[in-house]
């Protein structure tokens, strides 16, 4: 009797599963076909075609439980993200996951039972029924997974769109916070644009311009000098980075894709994970070296500096004239420090800024350092300082460098981790382009500075010249 009842139950179950399978397969077909593709998180159905180079670390419960700072960050950054909607998505995702888990468990128990029955040589009918149930469960699991992929993708992509928390120092409400102002007064008199120096600059468009003679020399020597200053004075490790970064890194660092040119490669290693022309002296240029890297706590901090190119496209603003301020290519110096903690990150950010201030002071032109408003930050940054020089031609400040604190936001997403005794933690990253050479050249010209007389901190020749000048001055006292 008991056996019979069990048989009836099994048959009902099989029919139920068959029906569910059919329904799920049908509804899966009706789902919207177009799904966003990400290289950072690839769902199982797309994994065959698209290799997932890493799996970002995501703690859903922990992140979503911090409602208040997250809400504050979203609001201050002026993002259109609804946390309640995201939580609903999460609940749906969780429920699907549970359903899948349930069916998986059931399937496992069926297969276990089958094995046992096979061992004891049970009746064929019973085995057949179990097999049928197993097949139905497999189909049901397949359908559930198919149904789940878009749900999973939708939730995870939304989750990955969440911003970093804000640093307490980050100004909010469209304000900038002044950190430093050089004592050299600002040139208030209207000056002609730097492009008026036709004998020294030939500007075609934002992609293509040439600088000649002294400018071209300054272009290389200033970049080398500041790099050298960070190495000698700050103990930074000099690097030369690759110029391409793939989509996975851009997504991990929440870099807007329109910031860089997409490279049209002939031999694509992945349809999704395409290459972008970033230049080596960019934040993204460093990331490939740290993706999936495991370090021990004693290795930190890791301070690095890279001279090289940067190819950031400047967004077109109405009424903005194209010139060296909006040009894509420049020589640049990019700093990057991986640290153990938030406190260490803060210290390192100050150190980077202090060394940069030393360098800019010597140029003899007015500049300032500010903390930018939260709305100007990318989702990955929690604080950004901007080094700005004044353009007497355009009567506005131009950003010539910046340093950002990323917390552990990017480390988690690129699997850059610290091996602790009990598991893993994530380094806090501080990074910034401290010298945008092309813009500095344009600004020095507008401010009437003779580039040949500029003292470049960290430049061996410039340092020698300064020492000789000081000695001469001293000798003059006794004449």
């Amino acid at each position: 009797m008991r056996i019979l009842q069990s048989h009836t139950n099994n048959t009902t179950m099989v029919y139920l599963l068959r029906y569910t399978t059919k329904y799920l397969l049908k509804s899966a077909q009706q789902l919207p076909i177009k799904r966003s593709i990400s290289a950072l998180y690839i769902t199982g159905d797309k994994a065959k075609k698209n290799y997932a180079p890493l799996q970002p670390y995501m703690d859903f419960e922990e992140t979503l439980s911090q409602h208040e700072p997250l809400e504050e960050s979203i609001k201050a950054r002026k993002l259109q993200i609804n946390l309640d909607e995201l939580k609903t998505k999460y609940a749906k995702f969780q429920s699907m996951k549970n359903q899948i888990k349930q069916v998986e468990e059931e399937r496992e128990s069926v297969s276990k039972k089958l094995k046992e029955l096979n061992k004891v040589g049970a009746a064929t009918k019973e085995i057949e029924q179990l097999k049928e149930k197993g097949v139905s469960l497999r189909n049901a699991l397949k359908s559930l997974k198919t149904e789940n992929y878009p749900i999973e993708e939708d939730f995870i992509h939304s989750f990955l769109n969440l911003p970093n928390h804000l640093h307490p120092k980050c100004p909010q409400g469209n304000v900038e916070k002044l950190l430093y102002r050089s004592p050299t007064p600002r040139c208030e008199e209207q000056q002609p644009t730097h492009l008026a120096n036709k004998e020294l600059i030939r500007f075609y468009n934002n992609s293509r311009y040439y600088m000649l003679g002294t400018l071209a020399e300054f272009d290389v020597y200033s970049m080398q000098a500041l790099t050298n200053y960070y190495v000698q004075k700050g103990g930074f490790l000099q690097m030369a980075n690759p110029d391409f970064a793939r989509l996975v890194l851009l997504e991990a660092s929440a870099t807007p894709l329109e910031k860089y040119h997409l490279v049209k490669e002939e031999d694509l290693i992945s349809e999704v994970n395409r290459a972008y022309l970033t230049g080596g002296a960019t934040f993204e240029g460093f990331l490939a070296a740290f993706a999936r890297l495991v370090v021990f706590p004693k290795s930190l901090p890791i301070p690095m500096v890279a001279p090289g190119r940067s190819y950031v496209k400047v967004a077109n603003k109405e009424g903005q004239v194209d010139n060296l301020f909006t040009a894509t290519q420049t020589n640049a110096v990019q700093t990057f420090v991986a640290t153990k903690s938030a406190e260490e990150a803060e210290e390192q950010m100050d150190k980077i800024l202090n060394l940069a201030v030393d360098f800019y002071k010597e140029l003899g032109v007015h500049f300032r350092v500010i903390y930018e408003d939260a709305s100007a930050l990318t989702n990955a940054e929690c604080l950004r300082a901007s080094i700005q020089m004044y353009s007497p031609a355009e009567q506005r400040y131009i950003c010539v460098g910046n340093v950002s604190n990323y917390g552990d936001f990017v480390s988690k997403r690129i699997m850059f981790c610290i091996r602790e005794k009990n598991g893993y933690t994530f380094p806090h990253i501080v990074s910034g382009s401290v010298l945008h050479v092309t813009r500095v050249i344009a600004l020095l010209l507008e401010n009437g500075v003779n580039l040949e007389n500029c003292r470049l901190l960290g430049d061996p020749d410039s340092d020698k010249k300064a020492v000789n000048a000081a000695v001469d001055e001293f000798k003059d006292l006794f004449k």
Partner: protein
Amino acid sequence: MAGTKIFINKLSRPLVSEIFRNYKTMWIISNHIKLFSAHNVNEIFLRDIEKNILLRKHTNNVPVIKTLLQKLRKCPNDVEIQRQIEIELGKLPNGTHSRVVNYGEKGHEVYNNNLAPGTGEQFSDVCKYLNVLRMEHLGHFAGHKSYYLMGDLASLEQSLVRYTMSYLRKNEFKLISVPDILPSNIINGCGMQTEGNRNQVYKIDSEECLSGTSEMALAGFFTDQVIEEQCLPLKIAAVSRCYRAETSGLNEEKGIYRVHQFTKVEMFAVCSEKQSEMVLESFKDTEMCLYKQLNLKFRVLDMPPNELGASAFQKYDIEAWLPGRQMWGEISSCSNCTDYQAKRLNIKYKTKDGLLKYAHTANGTAAAIPRLLIALIESNKIENGTVYLPEELRNILNNSLLARNKVVPSLKLIKHF
């Protein structure tokens, strides 16, 4: 070839005269007059051209041109056919110097400094020990054959740039900062094709191209210009990032020997037709001086026709002995492009008699960083795990040794948490 008519802008603006003394350019209103005219091509011309192509083992497009010409005979006014013929004519290689015509397929060694070979340590082994180069596991994050130079090796890159720049400055080269993103017509004009399969040129989403060498940007700089003869030759240097889509699976080209991205210091000259051979010799001499001071064992080869790029009339290669690889590796070259690029990019000069002529161009590699790094590390003394560098670089580098990087821990990657 069609007759050339030039319109000179009445408001011609003298440019860059401060940089190049007495250098005056006259800008032209009308753009480049068509280089070749389909109607002026005849059988004799094609026969000579094909002979030259076969000698250089260049892609033979003469049959295509002949077919197009037949079509044109049937429809003489078909503009599209004329355009196609002009495109094909533009792809033809330069002529070949009579001296090298009978060289066969091997270059002639014209110089060898016969230095004793260096230590014989492989570059990759030294770098691994010193922890100054990372190439592993970067493909999915940066790209195939990507690399990071770290610590002293990265400093050495910039020191080599500085060393080369200061030498070129002393030898009256003027420096220009050049763009790495260029319109395709400039690259085509330099003798590199940007269309077709297995292309060496990277394209980006704006349909522009990434420059493979600053020679392209520099040639582009002089496009549509007329220069006074007395200002010639104009000797220019540029430091740039070079992008090449070509790949290599050859074992002897492993590591950073052939990469997609690298830094290069380039020499370029615009000169008159009488000067180009002399300029090429001076480029070769400059390269030799630069490498002599770096203690490299090297030889100079006068290259045979099949080794000449489309734009080169003659070319020297400099090969350094790489003791770690036990082979000669090309570290530099210089080419005389005669009027090949000038015709395609409309670069002219005005003779003392007021005649307008196509200028000649020449180019040479002063320092291609990755191979120079290999040659330097493999050729210099290594003791107690540090590499001793040549005197010339010590002052610039502020350090006579290449030391082990202890900042970045050795590579350990995680698969999942």
